[in-house]
């Protein structure tokens, strides 16, 4: 009997073995699709199921999974994204990274929900996928080329996901590039390089079945309108992009300066988003069906290239003591073309610079001079000289040269550009996020410091609840797959228009700070209603009701699935921590120490239904229907 087809999916996934060249159908049962949706969720489930414990990320049998979601290739705003999942060569934990551009849409229109790649080709290859065929093709002419040229040399009609020299040379934080967008973090590009796989390209014209197309279209129109009129998604992000965070984080004392030695610098205005928009921006750019259009294009040496995001301005700028905007633009372009995560690159160079200044590393690096830094970044991608050490990341460098107390990483992943000593909830989020020190698995700092409310950043009250709520929401969003920027539209627009010093804003912020017990109850309740647009889109596409409670529970399931994978790979509660500098060295006058993680972590574990050692209880796993 033929299997019933599920709306929202192409009902075909592929298993490609590069060692043998064999392509077969990948069986994913319907129950797993319902429980994990797609994207990050199904990627994590498959990683767990298709690899044995302890498998090295560079072992040929390691899997590299490209997954779309039920909403990919539909007109739902901010939904044309794919997720790459594997084991991180940087951290040894679960690796996943989401990416925009057109590849996700074209992969799904080629009739593929999930592409699982295993094995290792005996020479450089790329995969070409269309509706009828999958071919493993020779990539000898592409090997060694940058991400931009590689994409130019591949056929125009295809969506592309490629690696640059960093991936080929197994830089542990190499990324995967699609158009100007990047699956940036955790080193997925290095795993792709270890398989001698230079690119995956796809094209097709298949359509995604939507059960209630009329309701879906109506919702799409209204949400597009809503996002365009919202103060954040319709004004600040389109006008200034993420770089607008430079001044804000500097003002809030959470911008990392000189390897997180301090949290602010008045020179930050020289690399601000406002300055970038006024003096360097040529045009805006965005992903398919996204009303926000958050990308910036700038002119660099006579050429129009992608401009930097906030993270690059923070980590390749302030964190290196570099407040030369043009130099950051150049470093950003070099990193992108080499296929290298600018967060980990900046974190690694910042750490090496401090090691140098403390006499622990023989190099010319300095927080005051930046000559030769562009060449150093190229050396990392090609593993030349000092670049070879830097390509290993902060954690491994600290094990070789010392300085573990100021090696700024969590679980081996270099921290992004928010110093948690000025946003304690974000510190808890960094410590507990499964892929390591990452800011887009919850973005708690938005509620504490960078957003319209000021939920006392130096208080621990209600922070465990906020972190759990946000992590679950984002895990569900990344499994659907939506862009996490969609979450900024969830906060009603009127809140952004309040006077931050005014009574209403203060009352709301204080109410949230005091709402711990209520939030705890909310976390234990499965809301039966459709409230946000995420679950409404899913309901219309599947033709069955998906409540907000169902949606959030999916996120909770995915988060726990990631946790189980990490535990299987040897991670324990002792890895849920922060660098010593961030725990013990205060950056605020009135603070006696850094992030009081010990005051938040036990509560966080209880809220998650984990035991005091951070292990999900059988009761929790049963409730979430997670097999293991």
């Amino acid at each position, binding site marked *: 009997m033929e299997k019933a087809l599920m709306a929202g999916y192409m009902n075909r996934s592929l298993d490609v073995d590069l060692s043998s060249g064999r392509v077969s159908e990948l069986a994913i049962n319907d129950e797993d699709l319902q429980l994990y949706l797609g994207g990050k969720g199904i990627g994590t489930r498959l990683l767990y199921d298709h690899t044995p414990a302890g498998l090295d990320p560079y072992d040929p049998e390691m899997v590299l999974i490209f997954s779309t979601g039920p909403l990919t290739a539909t007109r739902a705003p901010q939904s044309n994204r794919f997720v790459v999942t594997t084991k991180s060569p940087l951290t040894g934990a679960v690796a996943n990274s989401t990416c925009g551009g057109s590849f996700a849409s074209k992969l799904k229109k080629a009739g593929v929900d999930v592409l699982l790649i295993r094995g290792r080709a005996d020479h450089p290859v790329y995969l070409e996928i269309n509706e009828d065929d999958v071919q493993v093709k020779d990539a000898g002419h592409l090997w060694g080329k940058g991400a931009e040229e590689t994409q130019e040399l591949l056929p125009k009609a295809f969506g592309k996901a490629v690696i640059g020299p960093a991936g080929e040379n197994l830089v542990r934080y190499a990324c995967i590039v699609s158009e100007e967008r990047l699956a940036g973090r955790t080193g997925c590009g290095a795993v792709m390089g270890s398989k001698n796989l230079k690119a995956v390209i796809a094209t097709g014209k298949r359509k995604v079945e939507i059960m209630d197309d009329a309701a879906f279209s109506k919702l799409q129109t209204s949400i597009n309108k809503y996002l365009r009129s919202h103060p954040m998604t319709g004004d*600040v992000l389109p006008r200034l992009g993420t770089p607008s965070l430079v001044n804000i984080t500097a003002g809030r004392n959470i911008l990392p300066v000189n390897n997180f030695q301090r949290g602010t610098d*008045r020179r930050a205005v020289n690399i601000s988003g406002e300055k970038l928009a006024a003096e360097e921006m040529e045009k805006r750019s965005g992903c398919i069906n996204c009303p926000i259009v*958050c990308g910036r294009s700038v002119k660099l040496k006579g050429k129009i290239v992608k401009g930097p995001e906030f993270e690059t301005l923070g980590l390749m700028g302030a964190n290196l003591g570099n407040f030369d905007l043009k130099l950051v633009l150049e470093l950003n372009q070099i990193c992108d073309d080499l296929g290298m995560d600018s967060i980990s690159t900046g974190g690694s160079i910042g750490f090496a610079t401090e090691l140098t200044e403390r006499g622990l590393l023989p190099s010319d690096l300095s927080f005051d001079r930046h000559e030769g830094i562009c060449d150093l970044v190229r050396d990392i991608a090609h593993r030349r000289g000092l670049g070879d050490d830097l390509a290993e990341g902060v954690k491994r460098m600290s094990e070789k040269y010392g300085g573990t107390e100021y090696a700024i990483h969590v679980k081996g992943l270099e921290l992004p550009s928010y110093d948690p000593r000025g946003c304690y909830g974000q510190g808890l989020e960094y410590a507990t996020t499964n892929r390591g020190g990452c*800011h887009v698995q919850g973005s708690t700092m*938005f509620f504490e410091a960078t957003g319209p409310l000021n939920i006392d950043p130096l208080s621990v009250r209600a922070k465990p609840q906020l972190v759990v709520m946000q992590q679950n929401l984002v895990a569900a969003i990344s499994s659907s797959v939506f862009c996490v920027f969609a979450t900024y539209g969830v906060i009603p627009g009127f809140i952004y228009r309040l006077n931050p010093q005014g009574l209403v804003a203060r009352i709301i912020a204080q109410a949230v700070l005091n709402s711990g017990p209520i939030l705890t109850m909310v976390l234990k309740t499965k809301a039966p209603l459709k409230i946000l647009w995420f679950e409404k889109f899913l309901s219309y596409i599947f033709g069955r009701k998906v409540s907000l409670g169902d949606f959030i529970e999916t996120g909770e399931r995915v988060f726990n699935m990631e946790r189980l994978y990490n535990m299987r790979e040897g991670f324990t509660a002792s890895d849920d921590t922060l660098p010593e500098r961030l725990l013990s060295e205060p950056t605020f*006058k009135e603070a006696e120490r850094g992030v009081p993680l010990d005051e938040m972590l036990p509560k966080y574990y209880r809220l998650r239904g984990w035991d005091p050692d951070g292990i999900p209880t059988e009761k929790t796993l049963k409730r979430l229907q997670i097999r293991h």
Partner: protein
Amino acid sequence: MAILIPTYDLAQEIGAEIEIDAATVGELLSIGRERWGKPFEDTVRAAAIVVNGRAITRLKGKRTPLGPDDTVWLVNASAGG
């Protein structure tokens, strides 16, 4: 003398870093209104006032004292990844 770092837009009109002789945030705001008028008034209505990284709503509001080493930033809200 406290240092005022205005928002980027306001800085185009009044300068990027301004030393102001004020004993409290309230005094600083009064001086700013008197010196720069409506552009300053409009900015402080929409921006968070932050002293040494702490929002004044978490300090003593307009009564927050200012010393010679203090930095007052005016910051808008934003988001990103």
